[in-house]
Protein backbone atom coordinates (compact mmCIF):
# COMPACT_ATOMS: atom_id res chain seq x y z
CA UNK A 1 0.00 0.00 0.00
CA UNK A 2 2.56 2.54 1.04
CA UNK A 3 5.15 3.36 -1.58
CA UNK A 4 8.06 3.46 0.80
CA UNK A 5 7.82 0.89 3.57
CA UNK A 6 11.29 1.78 4.92
CA UNK A 7 10.14 5.16 6.18
CA UNK A 8 7.16 3.78 8.04
CA UNK A 9 9.28 1.02 9.56
CA UNK A 10 11.54 3.48 11.30
CA UNK A 11 9.97 6.10 13.56
CA UNK A 12 11.17 9.63 12.92
CA UNK A 13 12.20 10.20 16.55
CA UNK A 14 14.80 7.43 16.33
CA UNK A 15 16.80 8.98 13.54
CA UNK A 16 19.18 11.72 14.70
CA UNK A 17 18.60 15.17 13.22
CA UNK A 18 20.65 16.28 10.22
CA UNK A 19 23.47 18.46 11.51
CA UNK A 20 26.01 20.22 9.31
CA UNK A 21 29.72 19.65 9.88
CA UNK A 22 30.19 23.40 10.40
CA UNK A 23 27.70 23.25 13.24
CA UNK A 24 29.66 20.37 14.78
CA UNK A 25 32.93 22.28 14.45
CA UNK A 26 31.38 25.36 16.09
CA UNK A 27 29.66 23.32 18.83
CA UNK A 28 32.68 21.23 19.91
CA UNK A 29 35.12 24.09 19.28
CA UNK A 30 33.16 26.27 21.68
CA UNK A 31 33.11 23.50 24.30
CA UNK A 32 36.85 22.95 23.82
CA UNK A 33 37.48 26.66 24.16
CA UNK A 34 35.44 27.02 27.35
CA UNK A 35 36.01 23.71 29.15
CA UNK A 36 38.08 25.47 31.78
CA UNK A 37 39.33 23.35 34.59
CA UNK A 38 38.70 20.01 32.96
CA UNK A 39 35.93 18.16 31.26
CA UNK A 40 32.39 19.14 31.97
CA UNK A 41 30.01 16.36 31.07
CA UNK A 42 27.00 18.26 32.40
CA UNK A 43 27.91 21.14 30.15
CA UNK A 44 27.88 18.94 27.04
CA UNK A 45 24.60 17.34 28.04
CA UNK A 46 22.84 20.66 28.57
CA UNK A 47 24.00 21.89 25.16
CA UNK A 48 23.56 18.70 23.09
CA UNK A 49 20.48 17.17 24.70
CA UNK A 50 18.47 20.05 26.18
CA UNK A 51 19.30 22.90 23.82
CA UNK A 52 20.08 21.21 20.50
CA UNK A 53 17.99 18.07 20.85
CA UNK A 54 20.65 16.07 19.02
CA UNK A 55 20.10 13.02 21.17
CA UNK A 56 17.75 11.89 23.94
CA UNK A 57 18.68 11.63 27.60
CA UNK A 58 18.45 7.85 27.33
CA UNK A 59 20.94 7.86 24.46
CA UNK A 60 23.22 10.30 26.26
CA UNK A 61 23.38 8.49 29.57
CA UNK A 62 23.80 5.03 28.10
CA UNK A 63 26.59 6.40 25.90
CA UNK A 64 28.10 7.96 29.02
CA UNK A 65 28.07 4.56 30.73
CA UNK A 66 29.75 2.94 27.70
CA UNK A 67 32.39 5.67 27.60
CA UNK A 68 33.13 5.12 31.28
CA UNK A 69 33.68 1.39 30.82
CA UNK A 70 36.21 2.16 28.07
CA UNK A 71 39.56 3.83 28.79
CA UNK A 72 40.16 7.51 28.11
CA UNK A 73 38.84 10.92 29.06
CA UNK A 74 35.07 11.01 29.52
CA UNK A 75 34.53 14.29 27.70
CA UNK A 76 36.52 13.20 24.65
CA UNK A 77 34.68 9.88 24.54
CA UNK A 78 31.22 11.42 24.72
CA UNK A 79 32.17 13.96 22.03
CA UNK A 80 33.37 11.23 19.67
CA UNK A 81 30.16 9.29 20.37
CA UNK A 82 27.94 12.31 19.62
CA UNK A 83 29.92 13.12 16.46
CA UNK A 84 29.53 9.58 15.19
CA UNK A 85 25.87 9.46 16.23
CA UNK A 86 25.10 12.55 14.13
CA UNK A 87 27.43 12.29 11.14
CA UNK A 88 29.26 8.97 11.28
CA UNK A 89 33.04 8.65 10.96
CA UNK A 90 33.44 12.18 9.59
CA UNK A 91 31.38 13.61 12.44
CA UNK A 92 33.44 11.75 15.03
CA UNK A 93 36.68 13.02 13.48
CA UNK A 94 35.41 16.59 13.37
CA UNK A 95 34.19 16.37 16.98
CA UNK A 96 37.55 15.05 18.21
CA UNK A 97 39.56 17.69 16.32
CA UNK A 98 37.26 20.54 17.33
CA UNK A 99 37.21 19.73 21.02
CA UNK A 100 40.98 19.18 21.20
CA UNK A 101 42.34 22.05 19.10
CA UNK A 102 41.48 25.08 21.33
CA UNK A 103 42.86 23.56 24.57
CA UNK A 104 45.90 22.24 22.66
CA UNK A 105 46.77 25.74 21.44
CA UNK A 106 46.05 27.38 24.79
CA UNK A 107 47.96 24.84 26.89
CA UNK A 108 50.92 24.75 24.45
CA UNK A 109 51.21 28.54 24.55
CA UNK A 110 51.13 28.60 28.34
CA UNK A 111 53.74 25.82 28.35
CA UNK A 112 56.04 27.80 26.05
CA UNK A 113 55.62 30.87 28.27
CA UNK A 114 56.49 28.76 31.29
CA UNK A 115 59.69 27.42 29.73
CA UNK A 116 60.68 30.72 28.13
CA UNK A 117 60.08 33.04 31.06
CA UNK A 118 59.89 30.56 33.90
CA UNK A 119 56.50 31.99 34.68
CA UNK A 120 54.52 29.81 37.02
CA UNK A 121 50.88 30.09 36.11
CA UNK A 122 48.94 28.49 38.90
CA UNK A 123 45.75 27.67 37.05
CA UNK A 124 44.27 26.19 40.19
CA UNK A 125 43.76 29.58 41.83
CA UNK A 126 42.38 31.06 38.63
CA UNK A 127 39.89 28.25 38.35
CA UNK A 128 38.46 28.30 41.89
CA UNK A 129 35.17 29.79 40.75
CA UNK A 130 34.96 27.69 37.60
CA UNK A 131 35.24 24.39 39.44
CA UNK A 132 32.59 25.54 41.91
CA UNK A 133 30.24 26.32 39.02
CA UNK A 134 31.17 22.99 37.40
CA UNK A 135 30.07 21.34 40.62
CA UNK A 136 26.72 23.14 40.40
CA UNK A 137 26.29 21.94 36.80
CA UNK A 138 27.07 18.39 37.86
CA UNK A 139 24.53 18.59 40.70
CA UNK A 140 21.86 19.86 38.30
CA UNK A 141 22.52 16.86 36.07
CA UNK A 142 21.81 14.56 39.04
CA UNK A 143 18.32 16.06 39.33
CA UNK A 144 17.62 15.96 35.61
CA UNK A 145 18.98 12.45 35.11
CA UNK A 146 17.13 11.28 38.22
CA UNK A 147 13.82 12.52 36.81
CA UNK A 148 14.31 10.37 33.72
CA UNK A 149 15.89 7.41 35.50
CA UNK A 150 13.49 6.83 38.35
CA UNK A 151 10.46 4.86 37.31
CA UNK A 152 10.29 2.57 40.32
CA UNK A 153 11.83 1.55 43.63
CA UNK A 154 14.42 -0.56 41.80
CA UNK A 155 15.83 2.50 40.03
CA UNK A 156 16.16 4.42 43.33
CA UNK A 157 18.01 1.47 44.83
CA UNK A 158 20.36 1.29 41.83
CA UNK A 159 21.20 4.99 42.17
CA UNK A 160 21.95 4.61 45.88
CA UNK A 161 23.97 1.38 45.52
CA UNK A 162 26.02 2.91 42.69
CA UNK A 163 26.70 6.00 44.79
CA UNK A 164 27.67 3.97 47.86
CA UNK A 165 29.95 1.61 45.90
CA UNK A 166 31.86 4.54 44.43
CA UNK A 167 31.96 6.83 47.47
CA UNK A 168 32.24 4.41 50.38
CA UNK A 169 33.67 1.24 48.88
CA UNK A 170 35.89 3.29 46.50
CA UNK A 171 35.21 0.83 43.71
CA UNK A 172 36.44 1.87 40.26
CA UNK A 173 33.71 3.30 38.02
CA UNK A 174 34.03 0.66 35.31
CA UNK A 175 33.77 -2.18 37.86
CA UNK A 176 30.59 -0.63 39.28
CA UNK A 177 29.07 -0.53 35.78
CA UNK A 178 30.19 -4.07 34.96
CA UNK A 179 28.88 -5.33 38.32
CA UNK A 180 25.51 -3.56 38.49
CA UNK A 181 24.89 -3.32 34.73
CA UNK A 182 23.95 -6.97 34.15
CA UNK A 183 21.63 -6.95 37.19
CA UNK A 184 19.84 -3.81 36.01
CA UNK A 185 19.69 -5.03 32.41
CA UNK A 186 18.13 -8.28 33.56
CA UNK A 187 15.58 -6.34 35.64
CA UNK A 188 14.65 -4.23 32.62
CA UNK A 189 14.92 -7.17 30.19
CA UNK A 190 12.58 -7.14 27.20
CA UNK A 191 9.27 -8.57 28.24
CA UNK A 192 6.54 -9.35 25.74
CA UNK A 193 3.95 -6.64 26.27
CA UNK A 194 0.23 -7.04 25.91
CA UNK A 195 0.16 -5.91 22.29
CA UNK A 196 2.57 -8.64 21.25
CA UNK A 197 0.64 -11.24 23.21
CA UNK A 198 -2.63 -10.21 21.62
CA UNK A 199 -1.00 -10.48 18.20
CA UNK A 200 0.39 -13.88 19.02
CA UNK A 201 -3.00 -15.09 20.16
CA UNK A 202 -4.49 -13.82 16.93
CA UNK A 203 -1.88 -15.70 14.94
CA UNK A 204 -2.58 -18.86 16.91
CA UNK A 205 -6.33 -18.42 16.38
CA UNK A 206 -5.96 -17.96 12.65
Amino acid at each position, binding site marked *: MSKNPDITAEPVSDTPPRVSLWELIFFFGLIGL*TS*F*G*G*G*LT*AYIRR*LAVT*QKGWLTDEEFFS*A*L*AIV*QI*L*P*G*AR*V*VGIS*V*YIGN*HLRGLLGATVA*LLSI*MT*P*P*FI*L*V*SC*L*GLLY*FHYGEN*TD*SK*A*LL*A*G*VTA*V*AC*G*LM*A*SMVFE*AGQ*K*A*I*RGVFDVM*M*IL*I*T*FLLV*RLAHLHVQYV*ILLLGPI*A*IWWHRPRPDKKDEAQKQKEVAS
Partner: protein
Amino acid sequence: MIQTFGHLVALFMILSISAFGGGKVVLPTLQQQAVNHYHWMSNQQFVDLFGISIIDGPSMMVVTLVGLKACMEYGYVIAILGALVATVAMFLPSSILVLIVGRFWDSWKTSPWHESIQRAMMPISTGLILAAAFIIAKHSIHTIPTAIMGVIALCLMLFTKLNPVIMIVAAAGISWVFLR
Protein backbone atom coordinates in the same frame (compact mmCIF):
# COMPACT_ATOMS: atom_id res chain seq x y z
CA MET B 1 64.68 13.50 17.99
CA ILE B 2 62.99 10.64 16.17
CA GLN B 3 63.80 8.48 19.17
CA THR B 4 62.07 10.95 21.53
CA PHE B 5 59.01 10.97 19.27
CA GLY B 6 59.05 7.17 19.34
CA HIS B 7 59.21 7.14 23.13
CA LEU B 8 56.34 9.64 23.35
CA VAL B 9 54.16 7.62 20.99
CA ALA B 10 54.88 4.31 22.72
CA LEU B 11 54.30 5.69 26.21
CA PHE B 12 51.10 7.61 25.48
CA MET B 13 49.48 4.96 23.32
CA ILE B 14 49.84 2.51 26.19
CA LEU B 15 48.54 5.07 28.69
CA SER B 16 45.65 5.92 26.35
CA ILE B 17 44.24 2.42 26.25
CA SER B 18 44.95 1.73 29.92
CA ALA B 19 43.28 4.87 31.30
CA PHE B 20 40.24 3.01 32.57
CA GLY B 21 38.11 5.37 34.63
CA GLY B 22 39.49 8.54 33.04
CA GLY B 23 42.86 10.12 32.54
CA LYS B 24 43.64 10.81 36.18
CA VAL B 25 44.18 7.11 36.84
CA VAL B 26 47.39 7.03 34.78
CA LEU B 27 48.78 10.29 36.17
CA PRO B 28 51.15 8.58 38.67
CA THR B 29 52.48 6.30 35.92
CA LEU B 30 53.00 9.29 33.64
CA GLN B 31 54.86 11.17 36.36
CA GLN B 32 57.07 8.17 37.08
CA GLN B 33 57.90 7.64 33.40
CA ALA B 34 58.45 11.30 32.50
CA VAL B 35 60.53 12.14 35.57
CA ASN B 36 62.34 8.99 36.65
CA HIS B 37 62.50 6.83 33.53
CA TYR B 38 63.00 9.23 30.61
CA HIS B 39 64.34 12.19 32.65
CA TRP B 40 62.40 14.64 30.51
CA MET B 41 61.83 16.95 33.48
CA SER B 42 62.22 17.39 37.21
CA ASN B 43 59.48 16.45 39.61
CA GLN B 44 58.77 20.12 40.37
CA GLN B 45 58.45 20.83 36.64
CA PHE B 46 55.94 18.00 36.30
CA VAL B 47 53.87 19.43 39.14
CA ASP B 48 54.05 22.92 37.59
CA LEU B 49 53.07 21.60 34.17
CA PHE B 50 50.11 19.76 35.63
CA GLY B 51 49.03 23.02 37.30
CA ILE B 52 49.16 24.78 33.92
CA SER B 53 47.44 22.00 31.99
CA ILE B 54 44.19 22.03 33.96
CA ILE B 55 43.32 25.50 32.63
CA ASP B 56 41.38 24.14 29.64
CA GLY B 57 40.37 20.95 27.91
CA PRO B 58 39.83 17.36 29.01
CA SER B 59 41.73 15.85 31.91
CA MET B 60 45.23 14.70 30.91
CA MET B 61 46.04 17.78 28.83
CA VAL B 62 49.31 17.50 30.79
CA VAL B 63 50.46 15.02 28.12
CA THR B 64 50.64 17.96 25.68
CA LEU B 65 53.10 19.70 27.99
CA VAL B 66 55.09 16.53 28.63
CA GLY B 67 55.49 16.18 24.85
CA LEU B 68 56.48 19.84 24.63
CA LYS B 69 59.13 19.54 27.34
CA ALA B 70 60.50 16.21 26.06
CA CYS B 71 61.33 17.81 22.68
CA MET B 72 62.31 21.23 24.06
CA GLU B 73 66.04 20.63 23.57
CA TYR B 74 65.54 20.52 19.78
CA GLY B 75 63.98 23.99 19.62
CA TYR B 76 60.50 25.46 19.90
CA VAL B 77 59.19 24.21 16.54
CA ILE B 78 60.13 20.61 17.28
CA ALA B 79 58.79 21.07 20.80
CA ILE B 80 55.34 21.99 19.46
CA LEU B 81 55.56 19.01 17.11
CA GLY B 82 56.36 16.87 20.16
CA ALA B 83 53.32 18.29 21.96
CA LEU B 84 51.19 17.38 18.96
CA VAL B 85 52.61 13.85 18.74
CA ALA B 86 52.01 13.28 22.46
CA THR B 87 48.45 14.64 22.32
CA VAL B 88 47.49 12.53 19.30
CA ALA B 89 49.06 9.40 20.82
CA MET B 90 47.13 9.97 24.06
CA PHE B 91 43.68 10.80 22.71
CA LEU B 92 43.44 8.95 19.38
CA PRO B 93 43.55 5.26 20.47
CA SER B 94 40.86 5.64 23.15
CA SER B 95 38.73 7.67 20.72
CA ILE B 96 38.97 4.94 18.07
CA LEU B 97 37.84 2.45 20.70
CA VAL B 98 34.82 4.63 21.58
CA LEU B 99 34.04 5.01 17.87
CA ILE B 100 34.05 1.26 17.27
CA VAL B 101 31.97 0.44 20.34
CA GLY B 102 29.65 3.42 19.70
CA ARG B 103 28.96 2.33 16.12
CA PHE B 104 28.30 -1.21 17.25
CA TRP B 105 25.98 0.08 19.98
CA ASP B 106 24.02 2.33 17.58
CA SER B 107 23.73 -0.43 14.98
CA TRP B 108 22.12 -2.57 17.62
CA LYS B 109 19.18 -0.21 17.98
CA THR B 110 16.52 -2.51 16.64
CA SER B 111 17.13 -5.14 19.30
CA PRO B 112 14.71 -5.02 22.26
CA TRP B 113 17.75 -5.45 24.51
CA HIS B 114 19.01 -2.04 23.36
CA GLU B 115 16.17 -0.34 25.19
CA SER B 116 16.66 -2.60 28.22
CA ILE B 117 20.31 -1.58 28.46
CA GLN B 118 19.38 2.10 28.07
CA ARG B 119 16.81 1.81 30.85
CA ALA B 120 19.28 -0.10 33.04
CA MET B 121 22.10 2.40 32.53
CA MET B 122 20.03 5.50 33.44
CA PRO B 123 19.99 4.94 37.24
CA ILE B 124 23.61 3.68 37.28
CA SER B 125 24.75 6.76 35.34
CA THR B 126 22.75 8.94 37.75
CA GLY B 127 24.45 7.32 40.75
CA LEU B 128 27.88 7.83 39.17
CA ILE B 129 27.14 11.50 38.50
CA LEU B 130 25.94 11.92 42.09
CA ALA B 131 29.21 10.43 43.32
CA ALA B 132 31.21 12.62 40.92
CA ALA B 133 29.37 15.74 42.12
CA PHE B 134 30.37 14.88 45.71
CA ILE B 135 34.00 14.35 44.71
CA ILE B 136 34.13 17.65 42.79
CA ALA B 137 32.44 19.45 45.69
CA LYS B 138 35.08 18.15 48.08
CA HIS B 139 37.85 19.60 45.92
CA SER B 140 36.20 22.79 44.71
CA ILE B 141 33.93 24.17 47.42
CA HIS B 142 36.22 25.40 50.16
CA THR B 143 35.12 28.93 50.86
CA ILE B 144 31.80 30.75 51.19
CA PRO B 145 32.13 32.52 47.78
CA THR B 146 32.74 29.20 45.99
CA ALA B 147 29.80 27.61 47.82
CA ILE B 148 27.53 30.49 46.78
CA MET B 149 28.73 30.22 43.18
CA GLY B 150 28.02 26.49 43.13
CA VAL B 151 24.50 26.96 44.49
CA ILE B 152 23.76 29.82 42.06
CA ALA B 153 24.96 27.65 39.14
CA LEU B 154 22.73 24.79 40.31
CA CYS B 155 19.67 27.07 40.56
CA LEU B 156 20.34 28.70 37.17
CA MET B 157 20.62 25.27 35.56
CA LEU B 158 17.46 23.94 37.19
CA PHE B 159 15.18 26.96 36.92
CA THR B 160 16.36 28.88 33.86
CA LYS B 161 17.37 28.03 30.32
CA LEU B 162 20.54 30.09 30.54
CA ASN B 163 23.29 28.87 28.24
CA PRO B 164 26.00 27.20 30.39
CA VAL B 165 28.69 28.76 28.15
CA ILE B 166 27.73 32.11 29.65
CA MET B 167 27.88 30.68 33.17
CA ILE B 168 31.35 29.17 32.67
CA VAL B 169 32.76 32.32 31.09
CA ALA B 170 31.25 34.45 33.88
CA ALA B 171 32.69 32.10 36.50
CA ALA B 172 36.13 32.34 34.89
CA GLY B 173 35.84 36.14 34.91
CA ILE B 174 34.78 36.25 38.56
CA SER B 175 37.64 33.91 39.53
CA TRP B 176 40.13 36.02 37.63
CA VAL B 177 39.03 39.25 39.28
CA PHE B 178 38.07 38.24 42.81
CA LEU B 179 39.38 34.82 43.76
CA ARG B 180 42.97 35.06 42.59
